[in-house]
């Protein structure tokens, strides 16, 4: 009868087994982590949000941005004005638990659900602050307008809100063009 090769006498086999165990352990950990931090599958925004809250409380805060995008996508399936409140409450909840700062929560909410542009902020004068980087400012506003299209139009069904944001973008472009030219003449 052949005996099984002893690990004591087979250093190669021992090394292989050890490596396999390590890999199995890693795989086991990954599987658990993936399950914990998985994206919500429900098509119901309420249910999906509950899943996300649980995941965030369970240590998946690093995936906050992914969850945010996922919830937006789910909400697009059932666009309605109340969705805006849903996202606001999630952000307030997240900021109260320290998952995001209050400022981050404000910025995120207003970027998607407010007519005003967070990319057009600042306390200094337009001549000194905005005009030197006017092209970048307009580029950021354009990107934000795309997010507002998702938040206001496709998630909240707020056509009027999006229309005003779009109009504000166009008017800002015109007014900054004129104002910055006027500022340039003083330099």
């Amino acid at each position, binding site marked *: 009868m052949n005996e099984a090769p002893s690990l004591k006498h087979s250093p190669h086999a021992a090394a292989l087994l050890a490596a396999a165990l390590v890999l199995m352990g890693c795989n086991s950990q990954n599987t658990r982590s993936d399950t914990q931090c998985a994206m919500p599958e429900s098509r119901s925004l309420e249910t999906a949000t509950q899943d996300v809250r649980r995941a965030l409380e369970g240590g998946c805060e690093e995936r906050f941005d992914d969850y945010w995008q996922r919830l937006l996508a789910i909400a697009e399936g059932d666009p309605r004005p109340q969705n805006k409140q849903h996202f606001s409450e999630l952000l307030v909840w997240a900021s109260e638990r320290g998952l995001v700062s209050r400022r981050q*929560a404000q910025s995120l909410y207003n970027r998607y659900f407010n007519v005003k542009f967070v990319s057009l902020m600042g306390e200094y004068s337009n*001549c000194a602050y905005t005009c030197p980087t006017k092209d970048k400012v307009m580029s950021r506003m354009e990107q934000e307008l795309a997010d507002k299209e998702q938040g206001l139009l496709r998630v909240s069904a707020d056509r009027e809100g999006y229309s005003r944001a779009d109009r504000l973008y166009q008017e800002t472009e015109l*007014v900054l063009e004129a104002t910055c030219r006027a500022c340039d003449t003083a330099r």
Partner: protein
Amino acid sequence: MQLQRSTAWRWPFPTPVRPPVWLASFCMLAVSLGPAGATAADGPTIRLFPTTVLEDIQQTGQAAKNLETGLQDVIARLDQQQQLYRESKCEGAEDDPGCARIARQLGATYLEMLDVMGGQLPEMERTVNNTHASLQKRLRSELGQKMSPWTLQETLLGQREGGAGQARPGLRGRSGMRLSDRFRQYYQLVAHSRDSSGRSLAVIASDIYLDMREASDLIARTREEINRARLMEQLNQSFGLVTPEMQEVVAGVKSILFGEEEVYAPIAGPPPLTEPQAYESPLKL
């Protein structure tokens, strides 16, 4: 000989400064007359149209009015002569003595139109430059130096977000009405804005300023070119030709002064009515 293929002479203006193009800029002057001061309903006070700016704009409007008055009679005669030319089936029959005579008369009236335009342009240029300079100063001061990006967008949006149903001017383009009527309309609009919101005025001021700048450049270049055009038309008189360019110029002038149909794409049309949102997030800025 096909009229469209005539090579007797080419319109001497470079394409960007043909009269229909720069005359379109005159139409932009129509977004002008404004109150001496204006404030946003609840927002920062902006004084884009103080008395001095108002006077400059009024003078520009008067210069446009004079141009309109001066050209009205000439344009009417050009219309009659062009109609006669068409009805006499002169197109392609330029060698006919009768047609040549009509063409020379048409060319003479056309020269008269150039003379009127040439006579009015220096005054137009002066008032346009004054308006440009005064608006430049106000924009730099009121929107550039006194306002931050945030206050600027609050001004544009208006403090009372639900009250965006106010009519706004349709800017940048022809409205299909007489130039003088446009002035009257905009006077009423801006005068009304005095008591409602300053945000329209910021847009109007910006629009006028950019158009004044463009108009100033075009007028200067056109003045340089118009003498050449007059000389060429004088030479052309000896051949009695009616060129497509002449017809194009006349059509352009008419559309500006008397409001023919044009494609109109306003940058600032009236916004749709707003229904107040039921929910206000505590995160909202």
